[in-house]
C-alpha cells in the first residue's frame, strides 16, 4: 500500500544515517523530530506549489477565457503576461482595507482564514504519488469531505459578517448550494468506496491501473455516470460557473465577498483556485487512475531490471513518473473546469436546487444500488475483465 512521505523517506539509508547522527547529537531518539521536519518541509513545498498553482490558475483562467472569446488576455507583465498574477498580488497588498461600519469585525476577519484553513487541510491527503502523500489517513475521503466543508462555512460567514444585503444573499445561496451538492458527491464517493474496499486514497488508487480500461470510471456503466455526477457536484461545491450563484456578478455585485477589499479578498480567490485543484485531484484519484502509470512503471522495478540502475534511483524515477501522471490528469481536468465556465451560462437559483435534488441525487442513489449489485453479480470484475473473459481470454486483462 502507499505509505506517507515520512515512511517513503525512511527507507533510504542516508536518511536513517542522518536520524542516527541527529539522535547522537541531541542525546535522545530524534526519529519523531525528524518525521516532524520531513512533514514540515514537504508541507511547506506543497503549500508553496499550491499557492503558485492558485496564482497561475487565475492567469490560466483569464488566458483560456480570452482564447475562447477571441481576445488577447493579459499580455503585458512578463512574457505572454505570465507574471500577471504577481502584479495582481502586489496590487491587492497595496489596497486599503475597508471594514463596513455595521459589520461584525471578528467574523469578518475570520472568514478568509477559515476558507484557507479548510483548503490547506485537504492538501494533506491528496495522493500526488505513492510516496509523496503527506498523510495516507485511513479515513481519507471522509476526512476530505469533512474538512472541505469548512469552505462552505467560510462562504456563509463572509456573507453574513459583512452585514450587506448583497453579501447576505450570496452567503445564503452559497451555504445552501454547497451543502446540497455535498449529498450527490458523498453518495457517488460511496460507490467508489465500495469498489476500492477502503476509505483511504491509497485504497482508491492501488485498486486501479495505469491504463484507462483499469480506471474506476470504466469499471462499470454506473461509475461512468457517477463520474459526471461527481464532476457537476464538484463544480457546484467550488462555486464555479455555471454554479457561481454565490458571487453572481450580474445580480449580486460580487456576492459573498462584496465588502471584502485588498488581501482578504485575495485570500478568498486563492482558496477557491486551490480548492478547484484539490477537487480535480480527488476526481482523478477516485475515477481516473490517480498517480498510476501504464506498464507499472511507477514502482520503478523495470528501470532496475532492464537498465541496471541502482534501486533508489529506479524508485525515484518511478515516483517522478507517478507525480507527472497525477499532475497531468489533474491539470487536464482543471482545463475542463475553466472551459465549462466560459461555455455555459449561469443557471437560476431554483434550477440549481432542482438539478441537485431532483436529478443528481436520484441518479447517484441509482448508481450506488447499481454498483452494489454489479459487484455482487460479477464478483467484483470490471466490464473489461468480463468482456475479455467472454472473448476466450485470448487477450486477458492486464494485471
Amino acid at each position: 500500500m502507499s505509505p506517507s512521505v515520512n515512511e517513503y523517506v525512511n527507507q533510504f539509508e542516508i536518511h536513517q544515517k542522518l536520524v542516527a547522527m541527529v539522535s547522537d547529537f541531541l542525546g535522545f531518539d530524534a526519529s519523531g523530530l525528524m518525521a516532524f521536519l520531513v512533514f514540515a518541509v514537504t508541507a511547506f513545498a506543497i503549500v508553496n506549489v499550491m499557492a503558485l498553482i492558485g496564482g497561475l490558475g487565475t492567469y490560466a483562467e483569464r488566458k483560456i477565457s480570452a482564447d475562447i472569446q477571441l481576445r488577447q488576455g493579459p499580455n503585458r507583465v512578463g512574457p505572454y503576461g505570465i507574471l500577471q498574477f504577481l502584479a495582481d498580488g502586489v496590487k491587492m497588498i497595496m489596497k486599503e482595507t475597508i471594514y463596513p461600519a455595521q459589520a461584525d469585525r471578528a467574523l469578518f476577519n475570520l472568514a478568509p482564514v477559515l476558507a484557507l484553513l479548510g483548503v490547506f487541510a485537504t492538501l494533506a491527503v491528496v495522493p500526488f504519488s505513492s510516496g509523496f502523500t503527506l498523510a495516507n489517513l485511513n479515513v481519507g475521503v471522509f476526512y476530505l469531505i469533512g474538512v472541505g466543508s469548512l469552505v462552505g462555512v467560510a462562504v456563509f460567514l463572509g456573507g453574513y459578517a459583512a452585514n450587506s444585503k448583497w453579501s447576505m444573499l450570496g452567503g445564503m445561496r452559497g451555504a445552501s448550494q454547497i451543502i446540497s451538492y455535498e449529498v450527490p458527491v458523498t453518495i457517488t464517493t460511496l460507490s467508489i468506496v465500495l469498489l476500492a474496499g477502503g476509505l483511504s486514497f491509497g485504497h482508491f488508487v492501488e485498486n486501479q491501473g495505469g491504463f484507462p480500461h483499469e480506471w474506476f470510471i470504466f469499471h462499470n456503466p454506473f461509475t461512468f455516470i457517477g463520474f459526471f455526477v461527481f464532476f457537476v457536484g464538484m463544480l457546484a461545491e467550488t462555486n464555479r460557473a455555471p454554479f457561481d450563484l454565490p458571487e453572481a456578478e450580474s445580480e449580486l455585485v460580487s456576492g459573498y465577498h462584496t465588502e471584502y477589499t485588498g488581501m482578504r479578498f485575495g485570500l478568498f480567490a486563492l482558496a477557491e483556485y486551490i480548492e478547484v485543484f484539490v477537487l480535480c485531484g480527488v476526481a482523478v484519484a477516485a475515477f481516473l487512475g490517480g498517480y498510476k502509470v501504464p506498464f507499472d512503471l511507477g514502482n520503478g522495478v523495470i528501470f532496475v531490471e532492464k537498465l541496471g540502475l541502482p534501486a533508489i534511483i529506479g524508485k525515484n524515477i518511478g515516483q517522478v513518473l507517478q507525480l507527472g501522471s497525477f499532475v497531468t490528469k489533474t491539470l487536464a481536468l482543471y482545463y475542463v473546469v475553466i472551459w465549462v465556465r466560459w461555455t455555459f451560462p449561469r443557471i437560476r437559483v431554483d434550477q440549481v436546487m432542482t438539478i441537485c435534488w431532483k436529478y443528481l441525487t436520484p441518479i447517484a442513489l441509482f448508481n450506488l444500488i447499481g454498483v452494489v449489485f454489479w459487484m455482487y453479480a460479477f464478483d467484483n470484475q470490471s466490464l473489461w475483465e468480463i468482456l475479455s473473459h467472454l472473448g476466450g481470454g485470448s487477450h486477458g486483462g492486464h494485471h
Partner: protein
Amino acid sequence: MTSYTLDVYMPVIILMAFAIGLVLISVFVAQILRPFKPNALKEQAYECGEEPVGTAWSNFNVRFYVVSLIFIVFDVEGALMFPVASIYRKFVEIGEGAVLVGSLLVFISVLVVGIVYCWAKGDLDWVRSFQLSDEQINQLKGIEEKA
C-alpha cells in the same frame, strides 16, 4: 501503510499552521504598506450608490432552512453508510457479499424513502405554489367580505 495512531494527523496540524501563518503574514505586510484612511462614506455597506436602508440581518426565505434540514438527514445517512461500504469488497471477495447486500439496501432504501417523501411533500421545489382547497378559498373570501 495505513496507520491507526494519531501521529498521522501531524501533517494536518502543520498545514493548518501554514494556512494561518500565510494569512497573518500577508495581512501584516499589507498593514505596513497600504493606506488606511477610513471615513463614514467608505464604511457604508455597498448598495450601488443608494443609501443603505436597515440592516441585512433580517428574516430570510425559509426555503434555505428546509434545504439544510433535508441535507442533515441525508448527510448523517451517508456518514453511517461509510463503514458498511468500506468492508463490502472484502465480503464479496470471500463470497459472502449477500450478507452485506441486504444491509446496504436497507440503508439506501431509507435514503430513497426520504427523497420520495420530500419530493411528494413539495419540499424539493424552490418556488412552491400553494394550492388552496375550495373550502379555504371560501373562508378567505368570507374574511374579506367581513372586512
